[in-house]
């Protein structure tokens, strides 16, 4: 039988063809994925990276719920133009507690991996309420209801539990205090702030929308802005050595 005719066996037998295709694709997958398990720059741990605070996690859930990732990536690629525009390229370590990650694949709007601290909370609120009020030509939709809807923290502790089951190192203490931590972070209760900061170093603690102190309730916008303001701020790149973990 010639080689050509042997190939015909595969081509004329659906099951065999499927098994063959599976083997070939697995080889591709193994070659692409397995090295990531031991490449230093994908498994390095970097000082400063910590799990999300409960309020940030709630904001992240809203980010996912509203599909912000359809227009925004969170991944500054190691390319000159991106580093020039957005800042230091993203490290794998920065998404190590993202379940699931928000790298995205579409940039209708700008990358958000380093947006934390770039704007004021007021700007984010204005921008979410009506993007056109600050960027006249913006095509981003308005998310006006976020500032009007009270944040539902009923299941926040369970949320942390799910994240923990997926491998995020939330401690029992963190889970127990999840709801209170969210309230403290959003309303600036300085007496309790120390506990929160011990659990989540460098967390921003304040009234993100400027309405919580007066109304006594957290809104979805508070959580989302807390999340946005935390993005890309964990690592001090003055101390990080780009070349320490190349391979």
């Amino acid at each position, binding site marked *: 039988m010639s080689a050509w005719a042997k190939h*015909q066996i595969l081509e*004329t*037998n659906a099951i065999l063809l499927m098994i063959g295709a599976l083997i070939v694709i697995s080889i591709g997958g*193994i*070659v692409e994925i*397995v*090295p990531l398990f*031991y*490449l230093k*720059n994908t498994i390095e741990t970097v000082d400063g990276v910590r799990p999300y605070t409960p309020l940030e996690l709630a904001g992240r859930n809203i980010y996912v719920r509203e599909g912000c990732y359809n227009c925004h990536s969170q991944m500054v690629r*190691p*390319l*000159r133009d991106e*580093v*020039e*525009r957005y*800042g230091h*390229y993203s490290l794998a370590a920065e998404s190590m507690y993202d379940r699931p990650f928000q790298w995205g694949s579409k940039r209708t709007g700008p990358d958000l991996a380093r947006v934390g*601290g*770039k*704007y*004021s*909370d*007021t*700007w984010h609120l*204005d*921008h979410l309420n009506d993007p056109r*009020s*600050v*960027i006249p030509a913006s095509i981003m939709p308005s998310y006006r209801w976020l500032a009007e809807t009270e944040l539902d923290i009923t299941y926040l502790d369970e949320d942390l539990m799910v994240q923990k089951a997926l491998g995020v190192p939330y401690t029992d203490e963190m889970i127990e205090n999840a709801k209170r931590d969210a309230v403290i972070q959003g309303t600036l209760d300085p007496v309790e702030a120390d506990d929160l900061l011990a659990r989540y170093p460098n967390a921003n603690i304040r009234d993100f929308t400027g309405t919580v102190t*007066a109304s006594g309730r957290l809104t979805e916008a508070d959580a989302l802005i807390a999340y946005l303001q935390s993005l890309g701020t964990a690592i001090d790149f003055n101390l990080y050595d*780009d*070349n320490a973990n*190349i*391979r």
Partner: protein
Amino acid sequence: MADPSNEKLDTVTGFKTTGHEWDGIAELNQPLPRWWLWIFYACILFSVGYWIVYPAWPLVFSATNGVIGWNSRTAVDEAIAQLQADRGPMVDKLSKTEIAAIKDDPELLDFTRAYGSIAFKENCAPCHGAGGGGAKGYPNLIDDDWLWGGSIDNIAHTIAYGVRNANSDSRYSEMPAFGRDGILTGAQIRDVTQYVRSLSGLPVPHGSDLEAGAKIFADNCASCHGDDARGDQEIGAPNLTDAIWLYGSATPDVVATITNARNSSMPAWSERLDPTTLKALTFYVHNLGGGE
């Protein structure tokens, strides 16, 4: 399933058919086109070369590094080093030149303008507008009305350390929330609102008690905004007589300002941008029209 025994010769083309037949229509079993096959083989050959040159195969404890030692991290570092080398002489010159002297060197002037304008579009335009014209709550940088001062030094400081943020050198001041914190009553706020509006010649409703408003102003507001209400750039208190309103001049806007205070903030750009970029931005903003 195709059955080889069903293969027939197609009389028109002379090729065999696969043996499938639908209502008399049969499928030719032609070999792949030559050109396609050769490109396919060439790709396989190319990939072998690629495996040798670039990092590729996973081994037990690491992956093959490739003979040229390419790596995305070093590659971007090199690309940026190259960029800095290209810009180097001008950036160097800019970092060594006093802002006031930039305009004496036409080449440096062009470079600084372009550099500043790009940095402004990326970082500042979302708040201050693409042309620096500002928006409600975000000051106009083109006019010669300044909250924190329009000299080169003042602008440089405002940009580098921002306003009301966590940076220890940030510009800072806080207007009290007169209504929310119960310092003034609703009626007092209405009076002082109309008084403040009258200062820049806005028409006030009939029956407004401007005298009471003036008294409230002298007692509560003059310490920051000045006896003549012309503001104080040391603490970013705006001039209230100049008909330029950051938060709107309509009665409800001014009432809201006095009731809740605004105390808006701007990030400290020295935390994100390098000193040369800050310098170019300072020059750019100073030259937008209102620099002192």
